């Protein structure tokens, strides 16, 4: 199966053919994949070299002239390294743009901590007006990238090598209901769904699926929680607790408890494989089951 990044490259290459407003800005990463697009659209496929401040600044400058910029590199170099450019050149200047990252929290664990970005969504959460998509499958990535380019705002699309076995329909920004139950609500974000379903298959819980986490689907969670009291578990493929405050705000008028599961803050200083890091952070089916059943007292 192709990866989300493969699908992004194919999708965006087609969109460059279709939409003269779209400009792709690269900082060497994925340049090979976009070689044909760069030949076809030399003015709109722009590689600035290994210069991530310029990657965002130039993208924002393109937006100032009316273009729709899509900026792409690994998450750590797209959001964390040039964070002030993201904050000022896009947000403060009041222009839109699409950030599409690869690498996620530990897509390449053998590469070590420099190429891990568990904090990207939490960082963007300090800014106003960002839509954040976390697709769980290449099909979803394709739909969400298309949607992001066609919109006008500031959108982050977080691609990962981790993927669910099947894609789910991308209908709107809201959470979708995968299963209904009475013992609590578990929200699975993007590629965490398969492990959440494996961990909760025999449990009487509602499972919601979120491929879009910002804006946070307050109404969707509120509806799933019912009249309360409510217990909610959020399983995210990035920093644990990133969406706990948003869920808490959604349930402010109900007695509730929230458990935020995700990548731990402590640096593991381990290489290895993605599956080993999922296990280390308690995000494999076994680890999730233990913590979910413990919290929900099931």
């Amino acid at each position, binding site marked *: 199966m192709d990866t989300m990044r493969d699908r992004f490259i194919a999708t965006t290459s087609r969109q460059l053919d279709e939409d003269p407003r779209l400009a792709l800005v690269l900082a060497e990463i994925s340049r090979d994949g976009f070689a044909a697009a760069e030949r076809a659209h030399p003015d709109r496929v722009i590689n600035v070299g290994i210069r991530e401040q*310029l990657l965002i600044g*130039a993208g*924002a400058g393109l937006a*100032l002239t009316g273009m729709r910029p899509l900026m792409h590199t690994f998450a750590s170099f797209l959001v964390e390294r040039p964070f002030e450019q993201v904050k000022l050149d896009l947000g403060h200047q009041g222009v839109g743009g699409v950030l599409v990252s690869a690498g996620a929290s530990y897509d390449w664990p053998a590469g070590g901590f420099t190429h891990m970005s568990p904090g990207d969504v939490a960082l963007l959460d300090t800014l106003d007006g960002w839509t954040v998509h976390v697709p769980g499958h290449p099909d979803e990535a394709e739909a969400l990238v298309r949607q992001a380019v066609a919109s006008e705002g500031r959108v982050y699309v977080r691609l990962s090598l981790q993927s669910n076995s099947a894609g789910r329909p991308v209908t709107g920004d809201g959470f979708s209901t995968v299963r209904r139950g009475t013992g609590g609500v578990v929200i699975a974000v993007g590629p965490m769904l398969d492990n959440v379903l494996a961990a909760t298959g025999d449990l009487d819980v509602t499972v919601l699926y979120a491929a879009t986490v910002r804006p946070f689907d307050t109404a969707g969670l509120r509806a799933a929680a019912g009249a309360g009291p409510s217990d909610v578990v959020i399983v995210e493929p990035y920093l644990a607790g990133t969406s706990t405050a948003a869920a808490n705000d959604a349930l402010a008028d109900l007695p509730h408890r929230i458990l935020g599961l995700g990548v731990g803050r402590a640096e593991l200083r381990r290489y290895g494989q993605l599956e080993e890091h999922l296990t280390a952070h308690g995000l494999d089916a076994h680890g999730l089951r233990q913590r979910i059943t413990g919290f929900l007292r099931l």
Partner: protein
Amino acid sequence: MTNTTSAPVYGYDDLNRLMSLMTGDEKHGPAATSTLDALWVLYDRVLRVTPATAGSPDRDRFLLSKGHGPMAYYAVLAARGFFGEELLPGFGSYDSPLGHHPDRLLVPGAEIGSGSLGHGLPLAVGSVLGLRAQGLTGPGVWVLTGDAELDEGSNHEAIAYAGPAGLDQLHTVVIDNGSATYARPGGIAARFEAAGWSALSVDGRDHEALHTAFTMPHPGRPHAVIARVAAAH
């Protein structure tokens, strides 16, 4: 390069009075006016942008990257009719659109908001790329930075890219008042030239010299004008 078409509301001799409306001072020292002459020559004789064309796709763009000490900039924009002088006395107050750093969403005629140093050049690079992608090869994009602002590494990402990329619609005016603690060995112009730019150093108070430098042909290369003014200290 043609001149702007509409007459200014005020002339160069009014700028000190307009600045006084903001500062409360009758006279202004070198620091407050370091950008004044370059700004005036640009808006009076070089930039093809007026209040009437401020939203036009084919206007020239001026990006004030050195956002601190913007009184001279506001005075020039008021003199050119982008907004009325009645806004000037409120400078920095809660209800005023005119802050101690400009905000493009508040100041008529301001192409970017600035204050944090080193953002203008990358934004200008992208603006040139955006104009070029839309077939707009006529408009110039101008950035004003300070010499100490060039300490910021983001500028060097932009300088090092723009030269080899041949962005000849891009212009940088460096106001050099010797405020960088570690001045560039070989001078500022040499730094730009090494990256493939056309570059020229001139007296930043000499209007004819500035105009000549601003309008010098630089085919295939971005252009930097280093405007030397009296030292800030």
